[in-house]
């Protein structure tokens, strides 16, 4: 089987994979990074989003071999260096942006990609950007709120009680 080498969350890793092995399977099964979730078989749910050379991709739609030499960041690489939750992760916790947690890694990775290209997105921009990430639990309300908060915007007036 061919060998693949890449950098995942700052660590050089390699493994032997079949041609058909998906990046999501390589991360989960070979590297034990089970934070990247697989929620569908048609590239439509977004649970598997990781960053590939800085850009968000659905890891279920990339062959592991195609990530040869790439820099991959997964949810496991999103905490602060001291191990505490990163800004976006913390905003998700503070605003109850997750329930069962299954869509959450993909949501956080998509949100991080959005905030990299748009530092103060509007509500509409956030909703449009997260279109490729399905959440069945939260109704998105608190996810959108968390992303607004993570970008430093005041969310105290959203859906005032």
């Amino acid at each position, binding site marked *: 089987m061919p060998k693949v080498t890449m950098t995942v969350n700052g660590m050089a890793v390699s493994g032997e994979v079949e041609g058909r092995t998906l990046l999501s399977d390589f991360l989960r099964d070979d590297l034990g990074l089970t934070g990247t979730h697989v929620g569908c078989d048609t590239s439509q749910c977004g649970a598997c989003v990781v960053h590939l050379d800085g850009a968000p991709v659905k890891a279920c739609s990339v062959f592991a071999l195609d990530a040869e030499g790439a820099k991959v960041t997964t949810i496991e690489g999103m905490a602060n260096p001291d191990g505490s939750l990163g800004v976006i*992760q913390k905003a998700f916790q503070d605003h109850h942006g997750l329930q069962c*947690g299954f869509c959450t890694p993909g949501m956080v990775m998509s949100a991080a990609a959005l905030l990299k290209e748009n530092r103060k997105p509007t509500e509409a921009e956030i909703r449009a950007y*997260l279109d490729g990430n399905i959440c*069945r639990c939260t109704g998105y*309300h608190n996810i959108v709120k968390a992303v607004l908060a993570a970008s430093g915007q005041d969310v105290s007036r959203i859906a005032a009680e």
Partner: protein
Amino acid sequence: MPKDHGIGAPMTRREDVRFLMGRGTYTDDVNVQGQAHAVFLRSQVAHGRIGKIDTRAAAKMPGVLAIFTGEDFKDVGGNPAGWFIGSRDGTPMREPKRPVLAHGKVRHVGDAYAAVVAETYAQARDAAEAIVADIRELPAVVDMAEAVRNPKNRVHDELPDNVCFDWGWIEDNRAKVDAAIRAAPHVTTLHLVNNRLIPNAMEPRASIGEYNPGTGDYRLTTTSQNPHLTRLLVAAFVLGIPEHKLTVVAPDVGGGFGSKIYHYGEEALVLAAARRLGRPVKWTAERSESFLADAHGRDHVTKIELACEKDGTFIAIRTETLANVGAYLSNFSTVTPTFLHGTLMAGNYRVPNVYVNVKTVFTNTAPVDAYRGAGRPEATFSIERVIDVAARELGIDPIEIRRRNFITPDMFPYTTPVGLQYDTGNYGATMDRLVEIADIAGFEQRRAESARKGLLRGLGVNCYIEACGIAPSNLVGALGARVGLYDAATVRVNATGNLSIMTGAHSHGQGHETAFAQVVAERLGIPESSIEIVHGDTSKIPFGMGSYGSRSLAVCGSAIVRATDKIIAKAKKIAAHMMEAAPEDVEFRDGKFSVVGTDKSVDWGAVCLKAYVPHNFPHESLEPGLEETAFYDPANFTYPAGAYACEVEVDPGTGKVTIASFAAADDFGNIVNPLIVEGQVHGGLAQGIGQALTEGAVYDSSGQLLTASYMDYAMPRADDLPFFRVDHSCRTPCTHNPLGVKGCGEAGAIGSPPAVVNAVIDALHRGGYTHVRHIDMPLSPVRVWSAMQR
């Protein structure tokens, strides 16, 4: 200032940390040393006779360890229905066997008839493709009305027709209801489809079976909302494993919404395969399998009649429903369209006469069972739609007609004509809250603004009531439940004063680890951080019934309170011994035990330590240790209720509906964690709005599922929904559980579909399309646009 901990505090969730770091443990994240992988072969036709299944080529393929077919399981038990429901003529319901793997016939697309176990998943998959099955296609029974009309074409050959039962509720009401409707000055009749839905928890189902030949012990790790129920079903009913030799573990579970309550054949297969092979066997569903083989929800066709006086006073309600149960009876499929539906048919109103008839029908489609709300959304939709139409026909404001008929606070406890006793509520007050938070007064102005953009704006309002916290064993037993519906908790206090709570509830997104700790922290006056919540493992927790039906806090939480109270009673005895006082003179407050009227006291920590270092206990009257278990069986259901308002904009050129705003005023009784409660409502609303606007499972006439991926089954996405306005300040605490809580998990999904449909019909009427009386969900652009064309 809101509290920062204990009951009522909006505490952030402790479980979030592991999920946000990617360190949750979902079933598919678990890999057991030496595991093999199972892949299922699923029928591609809706109905067919199974001939020869040729596995010879597959068996020789690399890595293949075993191949199973229905033949291997023909002598084990079937997966049973949990409730027995009789027909109104006294005949018992028909209960065909639901096998582990299809045997004789396949009965829906996705029905598993064989399984391959191999060293790797890819090898199992490759081998599955090499199996050649001779399946002779039979005409499919898809449409319910046709299934009833044509008993010759049958899903189950051994049954005389396709009807499971024909249920009347309450049969004694029937003549009175018929007479009242005949004599009524006004009757509104509506034909409704409650669209079939696919639950779509984001984590697909998965199971790992293990068997230890040395001890004879089995272990099943699985995506379950209720591990003890799964253990009972797979062990006692299907495989005949002694219950004490099977541990079922449901670790982190990525959403359930009902679909993971049930035991499925895949769980039995991985256990049987593990036993045969002597090694662990794992299976994880692909999403396509979830679409085809998870239990679906809803799927009712209903005729409802509402009889009223000219002033809108309700006189009678009569319904006739065909409810799809699919190809086999899933565990709750018989109770969902009956007792969870018919008993709610009086809604929040004084309706003296109500009669409900439900025929459940077998079809060549996936099994249909409880999905978030389970029967109550169907009841609410029928009632609240017909009220809206009646209000329009009678020229009465839709809010006003509801107010005129509300059960008023002075009438509780209130016995409905359909067999429930509502303990408490204040429907007028929730409506008042709704009118305020939805700014109903400002609607006209917003409508004018929409009109300037060329859009039709409409306002839809409705109420809902649900029966939650399922529920009292004596009541459900009388109604046909084959299980009890109590729950259990064990509180184990450690010598150093921290504690573990073992609960029968299962958390798959509800935040029990946080909320349950708040309850106990408040009760004991100790910090949440010293309380651990243990759930999901039958070898650790007492026998409980898991989480569904918004029962976790009301039933399991009450069991925790009871067990905690026993702890306090025991601790008082220990404290009394320590202070040389009588136990009845000891008072416990804020984590401190003191002798009334003295300055003697000992704190929580000292008592806990003493419990485990009982050097001078009088052992005849005081046992060492501090651990208590309580089983709690409630006296009644709980009755959350509320009022919802939706505003929509309809584009008259395309029929596209946009949710402009949504407001929900709920009465959940007391609230432990408002942050979590709001989140539960948001999620429910999204599912209800999804049902109303985008979601619908569609089978074609040959029984092929046309909506079998996220391309065709339209899950609500972030940009389909607005921010919601939710309010739960109206609180009438439940009168019969120790926390006064009612449950909040399903309300949003129950209350929202009629609000959306009412709003769209309102928008069309205001826009001059007064011929449109009703549109069936989902209100897709094409349906709305077509309805607008005369």
